[in-house]
């Protein structure tokens, strides 16, 4: 089978799913301001929200990451993908599973697992796909032609190992008959938080660790920081799930443990970020920000700092009292999964797509435009969610303010979220068009000769 077929297929379908996910997002945002829009069962607000999170996480982000890594891993390891056929089979199964799972969600067949609503048997099929990915990753590392494993490989290996357990705990063990009440809640939050922390963080960071030095054509700033970042995160991240239940009905010691470890996350995060910025700082000044790829990587890193500084602080009991359960949390989650990791994934797609198509990116200018619109819209998007969240948090402290009054106060914030979200949605189409043109489009004849570049 032709090399990189799996990577190509997964990247293209991931980009399509991204659009679907943003459509669900914008519809959800619209329902916050005009709740009567689309008043039918399959478009009810909770269903849209479940579709929005699941398509984003699994249809877009995970699939894009897997596709990009299918291209990156063989390059770092100076070999071919362990089995292209297995990769393609996995890609096809994965996409069929997604479609089945999403239809399940839309018709109300869901599990009570946040981020894991996809019902069985589709969640079991996701696990099967993951095992196929696992075999391919480990196999590719095993047949490598270089001695040393680069940081990207560590993170990918970590992710495939950790995620196997995290996914099974959240989606299968939590649904076992003897698991109920707060015990079930604890397992689900273990999954929810580690889905972000041990699936998307390591995969996103793995991609950035490859792309930043490669794109800037400069070595990574510090090998020691890479090691600190990786080994500390593998120990620290997994403890934090219970911080979703601070002040709630879960054991007090477990909450305290989760707070301590949430705060400790500052260590690996700062190691990674110092490393990324250090690499940017040592790159040649004149060209280091040319085109959409380094811009997306830079902005993704900036958002990564923000979200990872919020995390430790909002886990502190007194801060949590205000921010928890409000729109703030929504802003925080968006900045991690959209701001940081989707930015890295988009950078990865911009980098890998031309290589897969065997020619240059269709338009760097369009890529820049996409970056600027999306970034300028995402700043107010995040900001209104935090500001709204703090307003809500303080309003709830005051017994004189009824619940609906606290909701009414957020009307402007919800409108603002809808409008800034609409710009993000619009910018997505520039991205999608650019990538599709790169793969399938016709280039002008004089450009064609120039655009066809050997890999």
């Amino acid at each position, binding site marked *: 089978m032709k090399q990189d077929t799996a990577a190509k297929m997964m990247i293209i379908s991931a980009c399509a799913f991204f659009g679907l996910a943003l459509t669900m997002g914008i519809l959800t945002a619209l329902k916050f301001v005009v709740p009567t829009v689309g008043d039918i069962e399959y478009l009810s607000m909770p269903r849209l929200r479940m579709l929005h999170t699941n398509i984003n996480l699994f249809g877009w982000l995970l699939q894009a990451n897997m596709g990009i890594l299918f291209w990156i891993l063989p390059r770092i390891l100076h070999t071919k993908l362990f089995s292209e056929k297995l990769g393609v089979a996995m890609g096809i199964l994965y996409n069929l599973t997604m479609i089945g799972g999403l239809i399940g969600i839309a018709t109300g067949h869901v599990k009570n697992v946040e981020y894991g609503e996809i019902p069985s048997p589709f969640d079991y099929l996701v696990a099967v796909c993951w095992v196929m990915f696992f075999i391919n990753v480990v196999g590719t590392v095993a047949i490598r032609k270089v001695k040393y494993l680069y940081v990207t490989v560590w993170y990918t290996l970590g992710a495939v190992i950790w995620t196997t357990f995290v996914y099974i705990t959240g989606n299968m063990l939590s649904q076992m008959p*003897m698991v109920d009440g707060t015990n079930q809640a604890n397992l689900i939050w273990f999954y929810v938080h580690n889905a972000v922390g041990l699936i998307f963080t390591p995969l996103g960071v793995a991609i950035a660790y490859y792309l930043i030095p490669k794109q800037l054509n400069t070595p990574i700033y510090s090998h020691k920081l890479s090691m600190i970042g990786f080994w500390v995160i593998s120990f620290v991240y997994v403890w934090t799930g219970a911080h979703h239940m601070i002040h709630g009905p879960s054991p007090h010691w477990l909450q305290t443990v989760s707070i301590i470890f949430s705060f400790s996350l500052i260590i690996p995060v700062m190691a990674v970020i110092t490393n990324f910025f250090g690499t940017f700082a040592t790159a040649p000044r004149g060209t280091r920000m040319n085109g959409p790829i380094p811009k997306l990587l830079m902005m993704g890193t900036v958002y990564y700092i923000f979200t990872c500084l919020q995390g430790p602080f909002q886990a502190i009991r007194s801060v949590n009292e205000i921010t928890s359960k409000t729109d703030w949390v929504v802003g925080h989650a968006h900045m991690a999964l959209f701001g940081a990791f989707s930015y890295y994934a988009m950078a990865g797609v911009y980098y890998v797509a031309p290589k897969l198509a065997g020619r240059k990116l269709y338009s760097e200018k369009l890529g820049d435009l996409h970056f600027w619109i999306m970034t300028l819209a995402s700043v107010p998007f995040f900001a209104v969610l935090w500001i709204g969240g703090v307003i809500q948090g303080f309003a709830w402290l005051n017994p004189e303010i009824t619940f609906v009054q606290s909701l009414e106060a957020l009307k402007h914030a919800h409108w603002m979220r809808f409008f800034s979200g609409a710009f993000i949605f619009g910018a997505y189409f520039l991205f999608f068009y650019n990538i599709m043109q790169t793969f399938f489009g016709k280039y002008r004849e004089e450009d064609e000769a120039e655009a066809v570049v050997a890999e």
Partner: protein
Amino acid sequence: MKIDVEKSLLWTATGAFLLFAVGAVLTTVVPPMVNPEMWTTEHTVHEYTEQEKRGIAIYKSEGCVYCHTQQIRDLESDQRRYGWRLVNAPVSSSWEYVNDRYNFLGTKRTGPDLARVGGKYSSEWHWAHFKDPRNMGEKFPNRKGIYEKVSIMPSFDYLTDEEIKDLTAYIQTLGRNKNWRVNAEGQPLNDYEK
């Protein structure tokens, strides 16, 4: 023997797994062992009827949990807000949930918390509210003036009458494992609006 982790697939993988496993075991397997109230209790906890179980299934498939939490946190503000007529709502305890096959503790309050909502409103009120939260009809006029106008809850008009009854039956059970509202004689109140 000198081990060079960065050259070894086996050592990198094993190291990453072992470091992860410590935290994974201590935060998932150990808590129910040292805190048995997470799954068992000596208190009397409501056993759900068949109708209420159907209601739970609807609560799950409609995704109510994405806007409504079910936990009174150990905070004065939660206890006051979700209390009833100057009686603070008691803080939610782990044991109250042991019969919940599916937990709906939740992480986001776009709407109010429902942990102690059972009995606060009549089933008729819930009926009108599910049908159209923004226009509950003549029987339930705007009590505080802004209620109907600003609610952003979806209308669950598409549920059948039976389904709304099942869902309401479940909601009326919420928070009753602690008898926190009593009448002048100290008897537990079941339907406060009547």
